[in-house]
């Protein structure tokens, strides 16, 4: 019956989207090699070769662009392409000769290639002012401003010691691997939510709201005869969780929202276990459209890392080797009271050894 509602079919099976060379050599790849910035080859046990050309993407794509990618894929790749876990787009070829024309066409259309190997890849990011209500800043705009400056590290024009992963999130919900990135840029609210006491009783359940606060800053209260809540300002650290569960607790603040910078996280198990990113700069102002303070700070960190770290040393491994005091000195940023943890497991981060550089 044509009218029957189709549900729960799940995603299409991936196999139908795989190029022939992959179907044939599935699970039988022998090795890979990076041929030039943005281009690699995978060689199968059979001897077959699969070339990948990786192009930048702003992640936010118009269907116009996607259709253009389709045309390009038809021309060079038998219609085959994929996206990566960091939102780059990869074109999959078997004919080595088509690589250069493909790269040229992509470049002409505004999509440079790069980000492979020990390079800066795309910035994983979130919605920001384009779509999210709780964003302390825009996402795509900050990413664009930073990547314009760090562009040579993506294309390979400038060298890096190892893979470098920057991530951006527009609020503490951190929709992205911000908490485990070489450099994390994070929008922060810095003021307790403002409560709309008139709307609150209609929109929110007070017990859920009270329970939502990690520091217990929210207490039930009667305001103008209405059941509502009050926030103990000294206990609030602006996580915005109350705003998520109750729209009447507005956390956004045009004047005081800002951006923090975190460093030294990683995800891979390579050499050292995965690490969280640590606070480098607690607060920078929110200056659209190009966030010059943020861009400058991030560029400084990348340049310092590029100049000082050893080969295959991720940013966090480098800092662990030289020590945090030296890191703050090199990036020319102050160490402040905000850098010292005061959350649940704070004591676990105190320096409990006399092993120090003097």
């Amino acid at each position, binding site marked *: 019956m044509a009218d029957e*509602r*189709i*549900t*729960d*079919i*799940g*995603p*299409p099976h*991936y196999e*139908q989207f795989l190029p022939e060379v992959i179907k044939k050599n*599935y*699970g039988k*790849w022998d*090795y*890979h090699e990076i041929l030039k910035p943005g281009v690699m080859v*995978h060689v199968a046990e059979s001897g077959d070769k699969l070339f990948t050309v990786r192009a*930048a993407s*702003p*992640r*936010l*794509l*118009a*269907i116009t662009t996607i259709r253009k990618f*389709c045309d390009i*894929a*038809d021309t060079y790749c038998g*219609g085959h392409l994929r*996206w*990566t*876990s960091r939102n780059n787009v990869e074109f*999959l070829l078997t004919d080595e000769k088509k690589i250069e024309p493909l790269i040229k066409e992509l470049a002409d259309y*505004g999509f*440079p290639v790069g980000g492979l190997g020990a390079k800066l890849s795309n910035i994983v990011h979130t919605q*920001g*002012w*384009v*779509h999210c*209500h*709780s964003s302390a*800043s825009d996402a795509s*705009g900050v990413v664009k*401003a930073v*990547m314009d400056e760090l*562009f040579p590290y993506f294309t390979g024009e400038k060298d890096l010691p190892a893979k470098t992963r920057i991530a951006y999130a527009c609020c*503490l919900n*951190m929709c*992205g691997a911000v908490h485990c990135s070489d450099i994390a840029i994070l929008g922060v609210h810095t003021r307790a939510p403002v409560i709309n006491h008139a709307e609150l009783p209609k929109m929110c359940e007070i017990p*859920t709201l009270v*329970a939502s606060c990690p520091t217990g800053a929210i207490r039930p209260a009667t305001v103008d005869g209405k059941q509502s809540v009050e926030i103990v300002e000294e206990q609030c650290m602006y*996580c915005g969780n109350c705003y*998520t569960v109750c*729209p009447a607790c507005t956390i956004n*603040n*045009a004047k005081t929202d800002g951006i923090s910078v975190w460093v030294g996280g990683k995800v891979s*198990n390579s*050499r050292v276990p*995965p690490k969280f990113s640590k606070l480098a700069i607690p607060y920078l102002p929110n200056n659209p*459209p*190009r966030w010059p303070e943020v861009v400058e700070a991030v560029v400084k960190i990348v340049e310092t890392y590029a100049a000082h770290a050893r080969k*295959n040393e991720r940013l966090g491994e480098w800092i662990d080797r030289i020590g945090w005091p030296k890191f703050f000195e090199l990036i020319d940023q102050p160490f402040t009271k905000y850098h010292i943890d005061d959350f649940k497991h704070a004591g676990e981060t105190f320096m409990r050894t006399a092993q120090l550089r003097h």
Partner: protein
Amino acid sequence: MTETKRKTPLIDELEKGPWPSFVKEMKKEAHKPITRDAISQLERSYEEHISHWKHGGLVGVMGYGGGVIGRYSDLAAEFPGVAEFHTFRVNQPSAWFYTSDALRTLCDIWDKHGSGITNMHGSTGDIVFLGGTTEAIEPIFADLTANGWDLGGSGSNMRTPSCCVGPARCEWACYDTLNACYNITQSFQDELHRPFFPYKYKFKFAGCPNDCVASIARSDCSVIGTWKDDIQVNNAKVKDYEKQGLDLNADVCDRCPTRCMSWDGKTLAIDNSNCVKCMHCINMMPKALKPGKERGATILIGSKAPIVGGALLSSVFVPFLEMDPESEYSDLKELTEAIWELWGEHGKSRERVGEFIQRVGLSNFLEEIGLEPVPEMVMHPRTNPYIFFDDEIFEKAE
């Protein structure tokens, strides 16, 4: 390019520069009124340094609890095009492989019903259709399913699983990530679409410890490929790398976390019993080294972002699990169902499974789901003497 309602000098600034511009992308669809208003409202945010979106009420597809994120403008009078501006999370195919045909179909659907702007992809892995009205929800869904596509997850349910490119293109895949991701997604369609958990539950499948989908940081269940036996070494090719300038001692042996390797100019000796499968040496010499042949995965549970109790990385539950596609991953599914049952019953609202485990204690959690404690689960045994002793200790001590 169609005119927006107002000038947009601030965001226009972001059309400049070498990195592809999201503003250009938005403007490519500015012929649609909805998109035009989205652009104008964004300019307004740039002027005022604040978001103009409001929380969504409950919007969604009939019978599904997730897949659509409701969003409304707080400037609806001024920008009526975005009065409703919901997103649709379309479940991506394993490892984000497409054909141009498939993509064109998706573009056509989105062209017909929405803003024409997308995220390729959302942070969880979905194809995100960015900006559509409430009215369009059912028609979009009908067109999607008619063409073989379905929605992904949102809300307190299983979220859309994702996986690395794995055996499709990577020589290091220790199990079939694409197959596992597809199989789990299909097997748990109900849990994906109909929220009944305390909070979200994410799966990510990485073929080896390089973890190219960041599973250990971003999924409640992280499935990371690994191996049991010896690293496969081709010494002649190791030598080739050396000739090409790789410093075997400084760049490989000294960087091994357990220092279990040594190089005498001819043979790379590996004490495989002390290899922790970190991948570093293999990463350095893809032509010369390969993971062992006895392959499977480590199952780790519990990672999440900071809300509310602080961020977590996943922690080891099953050190080594075979991942034979023939088995349909029955062990993993059994484990998952046991976890869901316990957490589903006792987890607090908005308590991720990682936080739940910390609250009730890992030992208690293991006991309830019927998993034996093994030392691989901890970095080290407890340091504090606050042990809850059961009667059994007296028997054991005799």
